[in-house]
Protein backbone atom coordinates (compact mmCIF):
# COMPACT_ATOMS: atom_id res chain seq x y z
CA UNK A 1 0.00 0.00 0.00
CA UNK A 2 2.69 2.48 1.03
CA UNK A 3 4.90 1.30 -1.84
CA UNK A 4 2.11 2.03 -4.31
CA UNK A 5 1.63 5.51 -2.83
CA UNK A 6 5.39 6.12 -3.02
CA UNK A 7 5.38 5.00 -6.67
CA UNK A 8 2.57 7.44 -7.48
CA UNK A 9 4.44 10.31 -5.79
CA UNK A 10 7.70 9.52 -7.63
CA UNK A 11 5.99 9.32 -11.03
CA UNK A 12 4.18 12.64 -10.52
CA UNK A 13 7.45 14.26 -9.43
CA UNK A 14 9.25 12.95 -12.52
CA UNK A 15 6.44 14.37 -14.66
CA UNK A 16 6.95 17.82 -13.14
CA UNK A 17 10.73 17.60 -13.62
CA UNK A 18 10.36 16.71 -17.32
CA UNK A 19 7.78 19.46 -17.88
CA UNK A 20 10.10 22.01 -16.26
CA UNK A 21 13.02 20.99 -18.48
CA UNK A 22 10.88 21.16 -21.62
CA UNK A 23 9.66 24.61 -20.57
CA UNK A 24 13.27 25.70 -20.10
CA UNK A 25 13.94 24.85 -23.74
CA UNK A 26 10.69 25.83 -25.42
CA UNK A 27 9.70 29.18 -23.91
CA UNK A 28 10.72 32.32 -25.81
CA UNK A 29 12.02 34.56 -23.02
CA UNK A 30 14.07 34.61 -19.84
CA UNK A 31 11.14 35.50 -17.59
CA UNK A 32 8.89 32.77 -18.95
CA UNK A 33 11.71 30.25 -18.54
CA UNK A 34 12.06 31.26 -14.89
CA UNK A 35 8.30 30.84 -14.54
CA UNK A 36 8.59 27.29 -15.88
CA UNK A 37 11.59 26.03 -13.96
CA UNK A 38 11.30 27.84 -10.63
CA UNK A 39 8.03 26.19 -9.72
CA UNK A 40 8.19 22.85 -11.51
CA UNK A 41 11.58 21.93 -10.11
CA UNK A 42 10.69 22.77 -6.53
CA UNK A 43 7.44 20.81 -6.60
CA UNK A 44 8.87 17.85 -8.51
CA UNK A 45 11.86 17.53 -6.21
CA UNK A 46 9.61 17.73 -3.14
CA UNK A 47 7.27 15.03 -4.44
CA UNK A 48 10.08 12.62 -5.38
CA UNK A 49 11.74 12.98 -1.97
CA UNK A 50 8.38 12.64 -0.17
CA UNK A 51 7.78 9.41 -2.09
CA UNK A 52 11.16 8.17 -0.87
CA UNK A 53 10.13 9.04 2.70
CA UNK A 54 6.97 6.93 2.28
CA UNK A 55 9.08 4.05 0.89
CA UNK A 56 11.60 4.20 3.73
CA UNK A 57 9.33 4.46 6.79
CA UNK A 58 10.08 6.47 9.90
CA UNK A 59 13.75 6.40 10.87
CA UNK A 60 16.76 8.70 10.75
CA UNK A 61 17.04 8.57 6.95
CA UNK A 62 13.44 9.77 6.57
CA UNK A 63 14.07 12.63 8.99
CA UNK A 64 17.12 13.71 6.97
CA UNK A 65 15.12 13.61 3.73
CA UNK A 66 12.32 15.67 5.30
CA UNK A 67 14.88 18.26 6.43
CA UNK A 68 16.24 18.35 2.86
CA UNK A 69 12.70 18.87 1.49
CA UNK A 70 12.03 21.77 3.89
CA UNK A 71 15.43 23.34 3.08
CA UNK A 72 14.86 23.20 -0.66
CA UNK A 73 11.29 24.48 -0.40
CA UNK A 74 12.72 27.58 1.29
CA UNK A 75 15.93 28.12 -0.68
CA UNK A 76 15.11 27.22 -4.30
CA UNK A 77 12.51 29.99 -4.86
CA UNK A 78 14.82 32.40 -3.05
CA UNK A 79 17.72 31.69 -5.41
CA UNK A 80 15.47 31.94 -8.47
CA UNK A 81 14.07 35.25 -7.23
CA UNK A 82 17.58 36.60 -6.65
CA UNK A 83 18.60 35.80 -10.24
CA UNK A 84 15.37 37.31 -11.57
CA UNK A 85 15.81 40.48 -9.53
CA UNK A 86 19.38 40.98 -10.80
CA UNK A 87 18.30 40.40 -14.41
CA UNK A 88 15.50 42.95 -14.07
CA UNK A 89 17.85 45.47 -12.47
CA UNK A 90 20.43 45.08 -15.26
CA UNK A 91 17.81 45.69 -17.91
CA UNK A 92 16.77 42.42 -19.52
CA UNK A 93 13.73 43.28 -21.63
CA UNK A 94 10.56 41.16 -21.34
CA UNK A 95 9.24 39.41 -24.42
CA UNK A 96 6.20 40.90 -26.12
CA UNK A 97 3.84 39.30 -28.60
CA UNK A 98 5.25 39.54 -32.11
CA UNK A 99 8.90 39.71 -31.10
CA UNK A 100 11.32 37.02 -32.19
CA UNK A 101 12.47 34.30 -29.83
CA UNK A 102 15.48 35.02 -27.66
Amino acid at each position, binding site marked *: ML*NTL*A*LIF*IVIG*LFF*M*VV*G*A*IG*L*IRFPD*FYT*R*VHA*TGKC*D*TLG*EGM*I*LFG*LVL*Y*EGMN*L*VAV*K*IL*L*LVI*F*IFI*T*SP*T*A*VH*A*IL*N*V*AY*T*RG*VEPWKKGDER*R
Partner: protein
Amino acid sequence: MIDIFHASVIVLILTVFLCLYRVLAGPGWENRLIAVNTIGTKTIVVLVLIGFIYERPLFLDISIAYAMINFISTLAIAKYLGRGCIC
Protein backbone atom coordinates in the same frame (compact mmCIF):
# COMPACT_ATOMS: atom_id res chain seq x y z
CA MET B 1 11.08 -0.85 -6.47
CA ILE B 2 14.82 -0.74 -7.28
CA ASP B 3 13.93 -0.77 -10.99
CA ILE B 4 11.77 2.29 -10.44
CA PHE B 5 14.76 4.06 -8.89
CA HIS B 6 16.96 3.11 -11.85
CA ALA B 7 14.34 4.42 -14.30
CA SER B 8 13.98 7.64 -12.28
CA VAL B 9 17.74 8.25 -12.39
CA ILE B 10 17.81 7.66 -16.16
CA VAL B 11 14.90 10.08 -16.77
CA LEU B 12 16.51 12.72 -14.53
CA ILE B 13 19.83 12.46 -16.39
CA LEU B 14 17.98 12.93 -19.70
CA THR B 15 16.38 16.11 -18.31
CA VAL B 16 19.84 17.25 -17.21
CA PHE B 17 20.94 16.97 -20.84
CA LEU B 18 17.91 19.04 -21.89
CA CYS B 19 18.99 21.76 -19.45
CA LEU B 20 22.59 21.48 -20.65
CA TYR B 21 21.42 22.60 -24.09
CA ARG B 22 20.21 25.83 -22.50
CA VAL B 23 23.55 26.24 -20.72
CA LEU B 24 25.47 25.90 -23.98
CA ALA B 25 23.18 27.82 -26.34
CA GLY B 26 21.29 30.25 -24.14
CA PRO B 27 21.85 33.93 -24.98
CA GLY B 28 23.33 35.95 -22.15
CA TRP B 29 24.39 35.11 -18.61
CA GLU B 30 20.90 34.96 -17.11
CA ASN B 31 19.72 31.90 -19.07
CA ARG B 32 22.94 30.04 -18.29
CA LEU B 33 22.67 30.84 -14.58
CA ILE B 34 19.07 29.66 -14.27
CA ALA B 35 19.88 26.46 -16.19
CA VAL B 36 22.86 25.71 -13.91
CA ASN B 37 20.65 26.23 -10.87
CA THR B 38 18.12 23.79 -12.31
CA ILE B 39 20.84 21.20 -12.96
CA GLY B 40 21.94 21.55 -9.33
CA THR B 41 18.42 20.86 -8.08
CA LYS B 42 18.19 17.74 -10.23
CA THR B 43 21.60 16.58 -9.03
CA ILE B 44 20.38 16.59 -5.42
CA VAL B 45 17.57 14.18 -6.29
CA VAL B 46 19.96 11.96 -8.29
CA LEU B 47 22.32 11.75 -5.28
CA VAL B 48 19.49 10.72 -2.93
CA LEU B 49 18.30 8.08 -5.42
CA ILE B 50 21.86 6.71 -5.78
CA GLY B 51 22.00 6.40 -2.00
CA PHE B 52 18.78 4.37 -2.09
CA ILE B 53 19.97 2.13 -4.95
CA TYR B 54 23.31 1.19 -3.36
CA GLU B 55 21.80 1.24 0.19
CA ARG B 56 24.33 3.72 1.53
CA PRO B 57 22.77 6.48 3.67
CA LEU B 58 26.03 8.43 3.45
CA PHE B 59 24.87 9.93 0.16
CA LEU B 60 22.14 11.84 2.03
CA ASP B 61 24.73 13.94 3.85
CA ILE B 62 26.50 14.61 0.55
CA SER B 63 23.22 15.76 -0.98
CA ILE B 64 22.47 18.10 1.96
CA ALA B 65 25.93 19.68 1.60
CA TYR B 66 25.40 19.95 -2.16
CA ALA B 67 22.07 21.75 -1.62
CA MET B 68 23.76 24.32 0.63
CA ILE B 69 26.63 24.85 -1.83
CA ASN B 70 24.18 25.25 -4.73
CA PHE B 71 22.12 27.87 -2.87
CA ILE B 72 25.10 29.88 -1.61
CA SER B 73 26.92 29.88 -4.96
CA THR B 74 23.81 31.08 -6.79
CA LEU B 75 23.27 33.87 -4.28
CA ALA B 76 26.94 34.88 -4.48
CA ILE B 77 26.89 35.11 -8.29
CA ALA B 78 23.63 37.09 -8.22
CA LYS B 79 25.03 39.49 -5.62
CA TYR B 80 28.26 39.95 -7.57
CA LEU B 81 26.41 40.73 -10.78
CA GLY B 82 24.05 43.11 -8.98
CA ARG B 83 26.51 45.15 -6.93
CA GLY B 84 29.89 44.62 -8.57
CA CYS B 85 31.43 43.03 -5.48
CA ILE B 86 30.59 40.39 -2.90
CA CYS B 87 30.09 42.65 0.09
